[in-house]
Structure formats: structure tokens, C-alpha cells
């Protein structure tokens, strides 16, 4: 095996896959603005991605907020900075953990479901059937998921932010007995609108990335049941990696 040839093959397959994802993005963006509009399907996907993710989001957010408060409280106590806990929780949740955790959870839940559903539709020829019934499958299947992802991720991220901060409150005030008033003061005094907004911008980007990657993986599935499995795994892994990597660069750019 020639290592240079292997490297070349890797680069070619990576760039050609990236190219196909971007082509799909262009087609999807174009189809969003062409009638007929898929309102019913979009609403269904918003319920699927948004509402049905709420229980998992709730549990993740409350425990993250709680552990964040717990760890920073016991840590900060060593140098007498317990009063900073509220600020740490608020800033971490809105700027970082809200969007990223929401993204990772939706990637695992809705992203996997999208890839598996579209993949199954591909291998059972349902996508071909759409074509023969003169229906553009990108418009019918991908556009609603794309819009739902872009809208629901910021919405879910807000929920994560709020629940996380409440989780922090329960631990700081309830368990460690800090003052109620000072917790909220310290939450609001140092929290700026840009912290929340930039977090939501990141969430929106993650939503688009999850939908696009998962739909891409599902839509171009090959090779039967095994292919569907691979597409689903691929969708979750690639979405999660994209979220974690792009999060760094988005943060560096947004929070200058």
C-alpha cells in the first residue's frame, strides 16, 4: 500500500463528498423559494425535531446546569469565589453549552432518524417513486427538514439555556444555601444580549448542519439494510464532529 496514494484517495473522497453536500445545499436553498411550499411537511418536521426532543433536552439541560454549579461552587470555594457561580453558569450555558449540547442531542435523535428514514426510502425505491409521481424528492423530503432544523435548534437552545440556569439555581441556592437575590443579580448583571444571540446563531448553524448532513447521508444511501445502518452512523458521527469543530471557529469569530 502506497501511503501517498492512500492520502490522495482520502483527500479526493473528502473533497468530492464536501462538494456533493454543498451542491445539495444549493439545490435545497433554491427549492425553498420555489412553490409549492411544503408547509404541512415542514410543520410535521418541526414537531419531530423540536417538540419531541424536549424531554431529552430538559434532562440534559437540568443536569448540566446542576453539575456546572456543583463543580464550580466546590472549585471556586478554594479561593473564596463562590459568588461567581451564577455568572459562570449563565455564561457557559448561553454562550457554549446551550447550543452545543442541543446540537449534539438533536444530531443523535433527529439526525439519526432523518438519515434512517431517507435511507430506507432510498433502498426501497420510495425516492424513485416520488420522481415517477412528478414530485421533486429534494423539495418534498429535504426542504422541510432543513427549515425545521434551522428554526428549531435556536428554539431548543433557548430552552436549554433557561433550564440549565434553573438547574444551577437549584444547586447554588437550594443545596449550598447561597442567597436567592444575589444568584439572579449575578446572572443578569454580567449576561449580555450578545451572549444569548451569538449562542442562538451557533444553534441555527448547527441545525442547518445536522439536517443537511443527515439528509445527505440518507438520500444517497446505497446497499440495502447495511447501507441504511452505515448512513445513520455516518450522519450522527459527521454531524457531531461538524458541530464540535465548527463551534470553535464560530465562537472565535462571534465572540471577538
Amino acid at each position: 500500500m502506497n501511503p501517498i496514494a492512500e492520502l490522495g484517495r482520502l483527500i479526493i473522497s473528502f473533497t468530492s463528498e464536501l462538494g456533493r453536500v454543498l451542491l445539495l445545499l444549493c439545490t435545497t436553498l433554491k427549492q425553498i423559494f420555489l412553490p409549492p411550499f411544503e408547509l404541512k411537511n415542514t410543520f410535521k418536521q418541526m414537531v419531530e425535531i423540536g417538540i419531541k426532543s424536549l424531554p431529552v433536552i430538559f434532562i440534559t439541560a437540568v443536569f448540566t446546569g446542576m453539575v456546572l454549579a456543583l463543580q464550580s461552587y466546590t472549585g471556586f470555594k478554594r479561593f473564596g469565589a463562590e459568588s461567581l457561580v451564577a455568572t459562570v453558569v449563565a455564561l457557559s450555558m448561553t454562550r457554549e453549552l446551550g447550543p452545543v449540547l442541543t446540537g449534539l442531542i438533536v444530531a443523535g435523535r433527529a439526525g439519526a432518524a432523518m438519515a434512517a428514514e431517507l435511507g430506507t426510502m432510498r433502498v426501497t425505491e420510495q425516492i424513485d417513486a416520488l420522481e415517477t409521481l412528478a414530485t421533486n424528492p429534494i423539495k418534498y423530503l429535504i426542504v422541510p427538514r432543513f427549515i425545521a432544523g434551522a428554526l428549531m435548534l435556536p428554539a431548543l437552545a433557548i430552552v436549554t439555556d433557561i433550564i440549565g440556569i434553573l438547574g444551577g439555581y437549584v444547586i447554588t441556592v437550594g443545596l449550598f444555601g447561597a442567597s436567592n437575590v444575589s444568584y439572579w443579580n449575578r446572572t443578569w448583571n454580567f449576561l449580555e444580549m450578545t451572549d444569548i444571540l451569538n449562542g442562538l446563531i451557533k444553534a441555527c448553524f448547527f441545525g442547518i448542519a445536522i439536517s443537511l448532513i443527515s439528509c445527505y447521508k440518507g438520500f444517497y444511501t446505497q446497499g440495502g439494510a447495511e447501507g441504511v445502518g452505515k448512513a445513520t452512523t455516518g450522519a450522527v458521527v459527521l454531524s457531531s464532529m461538524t458541530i464540535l469543530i465548527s463551534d470553535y471557529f464560530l465562537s472565535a469569530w462571534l465572540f471577538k
Partner: protein
Amino acid sequence: MIVVEELYKSFGPKEVLKGVNLEIKKGESMVIIGGSGSGKSVLLKHIIGLLRPDRGRVLIDNVDITGLNERQLYAVRRRFGMLFQGAALFDSLTVWENVAFALLRQKVASPDEARRIASEKLKMVGLKGVEDLMPSELSGGMKKRVGLARAIAHNPEIILYDEPTTGLDPIMADAINELIIQLQQKLNVTSVTITHDMTSAYKIADRIAMLYDGKIIQVGTPEEIKNTDNPVVKQFVTGSSMGPIKIEGVTA
């Protein structure tokens, strides 16, 4: 009329179609036979424009569909109905929504009207009272019939059948054959069927074409195909493992 001219298609290094020529007359029932993996499905998908050829043309009433843009292609496809091998019903929709899918999408009928048409088409394929079931609640034979109802819902001029009898028991297979013949006579459509089921082929075909090694090697009436002296066709229609068609791993 459908004319396939010098059609070539490769997937990666694998050449599947190597210059297919075929003429299908208006109103006839053409059956394309060939072994598994011989490219029958690929040929069928070119006829309805699901695949684009590397070279060659597909003419539907003298219009080359291989160069059409998306909107033109969808307009051509409205003249087609296709029954898929596994029926390819949309499993998130009920039976009647499946059958009326194109009508509802193109808004050519109100939902009530579409439902009425769906029931009528379901009746044509011998199904009653299944309108509100989900596809997962149907047996294989019922799924095929719902798929057939969906294929004829928008009154197509050309119906394509992808292995309509594969995976069915012999009695259900014969029922599907009867349905195909009935629809052919009642709706006066052109049908193109791909199959490797020779019983079915003899029964429903006006003419049979054999696809072998990426080319059409013989076209003829069922009678001519039955009495062929082409050794390849003969081996296929008589179903023998001995002859010019070699199967990997089997020594004849």
C-alpha cells in the same frame, strides 16, 4: 411510441448497457426479459428518466427525454405510471393517500375528489375497504396492487412494471398478470414490463425482448421467442443452467 437508441450506461468500471436499441409501439405490451443483474431495471429507469445515459437517446413520441430539464422531465413523467418491485409505497401515508399522491400534489383534484378516485382505482385492482390502512398492514400481494392503483391513478399512457410477479405466490402472481392484461385492454395503455418470470412474460406480452450482455439480442412475439434458435435466448426461456450463459461458481 418509445424508441431507445444506442443506449450506454456504466456505473464506475462496470458497463451495464452497451448499446441498447429497442422500439416499443403505442398500445403494445412489451416484456423485457433477462437474468438478474443484466441491467433490466437500469434500462427501465432510463425510459422514465430516473437515470441519464452516458450515451444514446430515449425518445418518447419523438422527444428525446435524456436532455430535458427538470420541469420538462416532470411533465413527461406525468404520462407514465410505474409499479416498483417492492411496490415502494410511502410508509408514512395511508393507502388512499398513496394512491392519490400525484393528484393531491399536483392539485388536480380536491381531497374529497382524490379520495373518490383512489377508491375507484383500488376497486380496479380488486381492493375494497383498505383506504385508511397503513402500507405496513398489507400483505405483499396487496402492496403490489396498491402500487398498481397508484401507478394508474393519474391515467397514464404508459405503465412500467418492474418485476411485477417477483416475490409473490403463483396464484397471486397470476392474479397480477390478469390485472396487467385487464388494464392493458381497459385503459388502452402502452406497457413495458421487465421480468425473469417466463410464465408471466408469455402471458402478458405482445412482444418479448431479451437483454443480454448489455444489448437486446432478440425481439419477437411470445411464439417466436418460445421457438427461438438463438442459444442464449433458448437457454434463458427454458431455464437451464447449461448453455452459453455461464454462472459463476456453477460448472455445467
